[in-house]
């Protein structure tokens, strides 16, 4: 069994096992164990890829290169830490009566299935399977979003389901069009035609530009819905705020990344066959719009998880903008930003989850004085916010700075909206978080059982990435950058 198979099978089998096992207390631990197995296998696989270069599995079904392997590791890692967090969190939710035992089983099972679908989406070599996995990810998370069965949760899940379903259907149409273009070019073995490796190798030779352009529009709208690009983003704040917090952490930290990954893969194809900057320009426009609008939305939030989900939209917009800009520096920055954003945002959601349990509500104006009631949570939230707002010495600062630099080089005038956007977003976060952390705690507020280990680990990693990108990681990013943009940033 190859490492890749372990990486994929562990969550799949884990999901089945957890579905059979029911709600026993050990389920939480098994969840963690499966996460660990996945992460371990992914890490070893990553090291192998790092040493020996891209791997194509037997039957060419899976393709692992520098770009997706690091996302695989990131996914497995955040999946692991979130499962560590979710054990006490979900137990607390059961105690509060928000979740029944049956649903806890559903939660655990779906959690692993969701991880499986994301890992599949990342590692597959087939654009069609990529689409299938993305749809699967939607289906599994729909159940998780509606876990609490409150009217709001149901409503959010429904919107998520319909909007993402529609979106992903557009992506399917785009995939069909790509297949159409490739098929008319290649003929031959039909099963190979949608393979990424095959497509990428023929793309330079000229897939039909008109078809590819149309396909890209459909794919952009489709996967863009999942990325949460404005104006396709409307499902995102609902789904993030109404689902259980571990779900929000993985949705923000991982699902958006995977969708963006799909988009970038497609963009690589399109760029290779179009020789214009159409794809990049569309992505830049989309990204900038999302970045600005989401920053404004931050100001008007009453719900803390909703606020941070808008922050996710904002950062996704920024990353899309970066990838859209292309060029080694921007791509490097966008890759780095993807990483640090996932780490930071999942840490923030974990902290926010504890904070909400502490205050018994998600309403910002009722969460106060965290730092006094439970300093670990208060500091976690504060540092997380500082990090996500792009303050040095955290890694987000470095990646945002890189993106700014790249913008300054390629599109000097766009630096201004970017800087304004940073300011607006920071103000939006600061005005809410400051009061949540430092305000006067309401009487009778008691600390809760919290596992801050994932937060500490995540923030530490982000800090580390901000202080010094470790050599192997830098080379890794560099390889990925070369893959995507064709040139090295270093």
């Amino acid at each position: 069994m190859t490492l890749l198979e372990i990486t994929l099978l562990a969550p799949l089998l884990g999901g089945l096992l957890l579905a059979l096992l029911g709600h026993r207390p050990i389920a939480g631990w098994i969840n963690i164990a499966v996460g660990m197995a996945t992460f371990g296998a992914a890490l070893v696989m990553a090291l192998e890829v790092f040493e020996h270069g891209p791997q194509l599995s037997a039957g060419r079904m899976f393709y692992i290169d520098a770009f997706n392997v690091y996302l695989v590791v990131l996914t497995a890692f955040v999946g692991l830490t979130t499962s560590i967090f979710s054990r006490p969190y979900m137990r607390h939710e059961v105690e509060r009566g928000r979740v029944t035992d049956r649903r806890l089983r559903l939660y655990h099972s779906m959690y692993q299935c969701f991880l499986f679908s994301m890992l599949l989406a990342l590692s597959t070599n087939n654009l069609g399977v990529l689409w299938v996995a993305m749809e699967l990810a939607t289906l599994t998370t729909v159940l998780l979003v509606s876990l609490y069965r409150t009217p709001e949760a149901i409503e959010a899940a429904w919107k998520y389901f319909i909007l993402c379903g529609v979106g992903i259907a557009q992506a399917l149409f785009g995939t069909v069009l790509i297949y159409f273009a490739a098929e008319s070019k290649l003929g031959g073995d039909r099963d190979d035609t949608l393979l990424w490796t095959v497509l990428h190798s023929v793309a330079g030779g000229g897939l039909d530009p008109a078809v590819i352009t149309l396909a890209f529009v459909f794919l952009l709208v489709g996967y863009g819905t999942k990325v949460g690009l404005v104006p396709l983003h409307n499902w995102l704040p609902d789904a993030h705020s109404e689902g259980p917090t571990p779900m929000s952490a993985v949705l923000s930290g991982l699902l958006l990344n995977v969708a963006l990954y799909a988009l970038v893969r497609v963009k690589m194809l399109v760029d290779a066959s179009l020789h214009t900057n159409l794809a990049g320009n569309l992505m830049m426009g989309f990204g900038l719009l999302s970045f600005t609008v989401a920053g404004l939305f931050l100001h008007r939030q009453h719900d803390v998880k909703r606020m941070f989900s808008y922050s996710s939209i904002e950062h996704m917009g920024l990353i899309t903008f970066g990838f859209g800009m292309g060029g080694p520096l921007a791509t490097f920055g966008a890759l780095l930003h993807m990483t640090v954003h996932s780490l930071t945002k999942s840490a923030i959601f974990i902290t926010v989850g504890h904070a909400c349990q502490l205050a018994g509500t998600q309403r910002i104006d009722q969460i106060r004085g965290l730092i006094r009631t439970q300093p670990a949570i208060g500091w976690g939230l504060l540092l997380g916010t500082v990090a996500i707002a792009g303050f040095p010495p955290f890694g987000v600062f470095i990646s945002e700075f890189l993106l700014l630099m790249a913008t300054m080089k390629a599109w000097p005038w766009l630096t201004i909206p970017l800087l304004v956007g940073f300011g607006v977003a920071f103000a939006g976060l600061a005005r809410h978080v400051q009061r949540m952390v430092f305000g006067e705690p309401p009487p009778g507020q008691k600390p809760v059982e919290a596992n801050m280990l994932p937060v500490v680990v995540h923030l530490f990693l982000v800090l580390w990435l901000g202080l010094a990108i470790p050599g192997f990681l830098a080379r890794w990013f560099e390889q990925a950058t070369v893959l995507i943009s064709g040139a090295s940033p270093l």
Partner: protein
Amino acid sequence: MEFAALSLYNQAIILFAALALFTSFIMLAQARMMPLIFTFAWQGLLLTVVSVLVAIASGHPQLHISAAITFCLKVVVIPYLLYRLSARLNMQYDAEVIEHPTLLLLGGVALVIFSYHVSQSIIHLSGLATRNTIAVSMAIELLGMLLMCARKSAVAQVIGFMSMESGIFFAAVVSTYGMPLIVELGLAFDILVASILFGVFFFHLRDSFGSLNVGQFNRLSEANQPMPSPEATEPSSGERS
């Protein structure tokens, strides 16, 4: 190419495609629940027939498989599920009010023209005689989306969604003789799961909101929400350092 010069198979394909498009329009205008579901099943059947015809005409036997899948899903399983659900939810005789039906149909016509315009740039690639059906498939997809936009009922939305999928599937059949098998299987699996989930959600929705009118779901609206009170607008430059 002159239409009359086409083989009978191809003429039949184009005919059935036109009929499928027509069913889309019917769905758009159909206010009552049961006929809507049936129309959807009819559309599925037309697609199946097209697939089989294409399979025979082009000699791609694997299209038979996808035709079989389509038949099972779009003609049997999903309509049946929807029918059962409507019956259990006691809404099979419901009819919803369609606002501006004429405008909606005109919009549908515009969409057909639009998709024809869009597909003009790509159909030259196809070697198939029936390549103009690509425009039809895109139109079916867009009409499905229009249906979702226009209808208030959750069931109608699901039908619109499924109709979109049909359109895409149709596009795959007429442009490239279907997708690779693994993709088709995955797709079928996803659609099956989705339709089951939709069913589950109907109950949840009714439990939570008392109806399946999705237009009423706006608990999570931000449009009329006031801004958070501006407590913290005092200058805090002292903390700046």
